[in-house]
């Protein structure tokens, strides 16, 4: 049993410390990007039309990391300032499903192809879901 415990410890240390530099690098990289996300909303790019709002919302959500509650706050602010529900929803969905800043860690865990395909797919889904939700709410309301 002690041998098994030690072996499991060695396996865990080896795997954990091989992923640690990627995690630290990703956190350092995201720390450069995150403080600038709220400033993107002041550029005036939002509000042109629902399609560009959706792409922009999904784009910002993709590079953002952090608690989903932050995306609800930002989404609420955007909605109050006249951004379409499509843009807000794309931001909220992409925030939690796409992770550009997480990409190196995800690739280290599952391979680059898996990480890139999954994130591209999730980006596309964020836009599609945004149109579905906004469309259903529009029809019902």
């Amino acid at each position: 049993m002690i041998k098994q415990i030690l072996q499991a410890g060695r396996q865990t240390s080896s795997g954990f410390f091989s992923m640690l530099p990627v995690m630290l690098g990703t956190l350092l990289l995201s720390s450069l990007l995150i403080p600038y996300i709220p400033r993107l909303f002041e550029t005036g790019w939002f509000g042109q039309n629902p399609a560009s709002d959706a792409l922009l919302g999904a784009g910002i959500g993709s590079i953002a990391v952090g608690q989903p509650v932050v995306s609800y706050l930002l989404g609420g602010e955007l909605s109050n300032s006249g951004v379409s529900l499509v843009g807000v929803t794309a931001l909220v969905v992409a925030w939690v499903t796409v992770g550009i800043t997480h990409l190196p860690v995800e690739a280290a865990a599952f391979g680059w192809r898996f990480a890139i395909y999954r994130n591209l797919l999730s980006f596309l889904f964020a836009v599609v879901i945004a149109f579905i939700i906004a469309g259903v709410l529009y029809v019902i309301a």
Partner: protein
Amino acid sequence: MSSRNLTSEKPKKRASANKSHGGWWFLLAVLLVHLGVWQIAPDLSAESLAYFVQVMSRLLPVFGLLFLLLWLFNLFARPKQIKHWLGGQSGSRGWIFSILGGVASMGSMYLWYPLLHDLKAHGMRSSLLAAFLYSRAVKIPMLPLMVHYFGTLYTGLYVVNILLFSVLSGVIMEQLERGTPQGLDYND
């Protein structure tokens, strides 16, 4: 990440991946970027480093918990069981477990990548992995807050869509994997 390889994974590929120093080169590159930013805009550099320290102070206990979970996983996990619940023959049971697992999973994604990597190495299907990652977008403790901001109907539609698209995401990822001779986890 366990080096045990009792599934269909290619041992030579996994062994060479474990010896890779790519992670350290990546960290070095990011440190050089920070150094460059510090030279050009010291204020921005200080702001981002303060953010990094704040995030790290929150994540350090999580890393400790992650190490403990991985150690327990390596000690007790049996590849046969994992293949039974999440492997190629798991069927609808595998989908239900991975989607419910994704919804129930809490904490930073950094906690889950290494654990999912181990599950994958022990036979978890790529489709179920993708479904798990997608269904994490439903955060049950956050739903009341979402209702507060966007309303009940919006929240209901959001949850239903995320769950449906997590299945779709898994199905498409599996199709993509079948169309890739080397597999999606090939890193070169």
